[in-house]
Structure formats: C-alpha cells, structure tokens
C-alpha cells in the first residue's frame, strides 16, 4: 500500500493546540504505526472546488489511499483502526463496543461540547450570550456527569485503549481551558492519559510542524 495522504491546514485559529480534526486522524495513524503524507491547505482553501471534491462540506481532514477518498474524521479513524492492530479489540463484541464509544463521542458528547465553544467564543459578544450560558453548561455537565460515572476508576472506557477513547479524549480536549473539567478528576486524568501516549505526542508535534502558514487578512477579528 502506498502511504495515505491526509489534508490539514497550514494555519488554524486554535494556536496549535491540536483541536482541528486532522489531529484525530494523525493520532490514529501514529497508534497503528502507519506513515502518512500531508497535503497542507491555506486557510480558506478548504472551501475551494479542488478540496470540495474530496470533502463536500469543505472541511479537513480528507484521506486518500490507493484511489479511496474519505472524509469525516470518525469514518477515517474507523478505517485506520481496521488496519490495526492497536485501536480495536480482536473480538467482535469488543469491536462493536469500541465503535459505540466512537459514536458516543461524536454524536452525544461533542454536540454539547461544541455548543459551549460556540456560546463562549463565536457568540460570546452577543448581548444574550451570558443569559444563555447556564443552560448550555447544564446540558454539558449532564453528559460529563454521565461519562464520569461510567468511566469510574477505569483507565479507558472499555478495556484497552481504543478508537473510542481516541475520539472521546480529543472531544474533551476542547474543554481544557473552560475550567468545567475541574469538577471531574477522573475525566481530567483520562484526558491526560490520552495526551501522554507517544502516538499522541508524535501526532501533535507533526501537526505543529505543519503550521507554517499565515493567518488570513484581518485576523484576529
């Protein structure tokens, strides 16, 4: 197999914290030991026709391998996990539960996490933003309470580290500056365990090394 090629930005507004979604794919590739190439996009280029052909929603990452073109970081992580070993358990039931946690990360936990990011960063200057925030935080805390209760004292969500943990840790990393995680010591340690993995470090270093571009005109807004 030729090396897969992923797309990433050469500049992003997260200050190199590795919150852009190519981080999920880089981390997965590092976990399974698969070398990869990167096609870097200038900020804005993701909405151009050449990239839209790879990803109709004009986002990163896309993934190209031997004529297969994929978008959606969750689907790409799953595709990589199947090349394994390292991201899915061997047994069918364990694999189904790892996939369950992938969807839980992206369809149950991420929407409420993203809602907080939206409320604080993107809508933070609106005159109603402050009044709305408690409801957003309540919805988020409900999910974090539930996740924390399920994780308990375990190291990972279901046995060994899996693609489900990878996506959940990446989703929770968006909260690292919010202070909201302080109420959840077991989730804080869970994220720290993820970030301490060598594959995570290698992925983040590679992501940062690719940030050689300039912010768009007018940044910061």
């Amino acid at each position, binding site marked *: 197999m030729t090396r897969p090629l992923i797309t990433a930005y050469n500049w992003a507004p997260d200050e190199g914290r590795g919150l852009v979604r190519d981080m999920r794919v880089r981390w997965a590739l590092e976990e399974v030991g698969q070398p990869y190439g990167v096609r870097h996009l200038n900020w804005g280029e993701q909405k151009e026709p050449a990239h*839209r052909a790879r990803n*109709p*929603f*004009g*986002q990163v990452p896309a993934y190209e391998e031997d*004529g*297969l073109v*994929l*978008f*959606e*970081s*969750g*689907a*790409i992580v*799953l*595709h990589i996990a199947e090349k394994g070993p390292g991201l899915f358990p061997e047994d069918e*039931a364990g694999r*189904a*539960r790892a*996939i*369950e946690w*992938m*969807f*839980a990360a*992206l*369809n*149950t936990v*991420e*929407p409420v996490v*993203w*809602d907080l990011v939206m409320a604080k960063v993107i*809508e933070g200057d*609106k005159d*109603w*933003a402050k*009044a*709305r925030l408690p*409801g957003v935080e309540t919805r988020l805390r409900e*999910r974090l309470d*539930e*996740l924390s*209760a*399920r994780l308990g004292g375990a190291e990972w969500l279901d046995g060994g580290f899996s693609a489900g943990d990878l996506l959940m840790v990446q989703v929770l990393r968006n909260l690292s500056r919010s202070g909201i995680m302080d109420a959840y010591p077991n989730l804080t340690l869970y994220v720290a365990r993820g970030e301490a993995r060598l594959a995570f470090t290698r992925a983040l270093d590679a992501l940062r090394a690719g940030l050689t571009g300039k912010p768009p005109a007018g940044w910061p807004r």
Partner: protein
Amino acid sequence: MSKPVITAFDWVPWFARGLVRDLRVRWALEEVGQDYDVRYLPQGSQKALPHRALQPFGQVPTYERAGLTLFESGAIVQHIAETHDGLMPAEAGGRARAIEWMYAALNTVEPPIMDYAIATLFEAEEPWSAPRLPSIMARIAERLDELARRLGESEWLDGSFSAGDLLMIAVLRQLKGTPLSTAHDNLAGYVARGEARPAFQRALAAQLAAFTGSPPSGYEFLDKPPQDQGERQ
C-alpha cells in the same frame, strides 16, 4: 440465534413521534429482514437503573443480542449492517464510504439540526432563542447546500441505498415542517424516496403504534400540538 431486543419509549411529546432514535434501529432491522423485540420504557425510567446500566447517557435505543449490549443508534445501525446483508456494499471501498456518510449524518449534518430543535422547541420561550435562530438556520442551510450539491441527481449518496442514506434521511426528517425541508428539491425527493421504502414504513408504523403510555405528571400539555388543544398560536 435469538431475536435482538431494543428499547423504546411508550410515550414521547407530540413533536418527537416518528423521530425518536429507536426509529433508526427499527428501520435498519426492517431493511435486513431481522425480527426484533422491544422493551418499552415509561418516560423518566431511562434515567434510572436498570436502564442506566445499559445506556450511560440515559437515552434510547439500546440493543441486546446474545450477550452483546450496545447503545448509540449509529453504532447499532453499523452493527446491524455488518452482521446482515443489505445496508453496506461488500466491497471495502464502498463499505468505507457508506460509513463515511453515517458519520457525516451524525457529526456534520445533525448537530446544527439539534441546535434548531433546542431553539424552537425546548427553549422556544427563552429570550435568546429568537435572536439566535437566523444563525442556526444559516448553519443548517450551508450544510444542506453542500449536501444537495453532492447528491445532485443521484438516487442515493453513493451507489445503492446504504446505512449512510438511512441515517442521513433520519436526520433530515427532523426538519419536516420547517422552510429548510423544502429548500432543495433533490433533498426533498431523497427524503421522500427513503420514506417510501417498505422497511421505513414498517419501522415508522411500529414506533407510532407503541405510544400507548401516558405523559409523566406535569407534561400532559405535550401530549398534543397546541392547536389541537384549542389554544391560540
């Protein structure tokens, strides 16, 4: 092997009927011709044991079969698609692309639609909902434009009907009755093709027929739309 058992509610507010997520699982099971049983939960019991042990987030559906217990409708649909014929191409590339559309439905298209439901149903009376609505609608419209452009004149998103179409149509159905649902003729036709499938019809009828329970105390006003209660809009 024994029949799978899923969980569903015996009552939901009027606006959620036909949209609760067990529909996605019922539809997948009907597409592959797999009989199933349903354990019905009274509203409220999903947040307590024993259901919490099956579903840490206190939601429906769950799926139990031969010792395997799963939650998350996307993961359950994927499991059904992988253990039966009919919802995923056999060829590896086609299979990966069907899964890509499953994630696109649940992680790219559905989140702004959930936001719309919060602003128009759950927080409709809050002072911030009206001023937020235009930006929520714009985010959904952007996604729908992109999806409509990719679908073009095709019948389904990538070749034959797949689990990706099933989830995308289930997500888009949540926009029914809003101006966003008629913005693109090709998407309206796509949703209608999905809903015309006999498997969808059977799944929908089964969900609707099961709402025989009573609303929890204090939620009687959500049993019928406001106009049916003789109230002014």
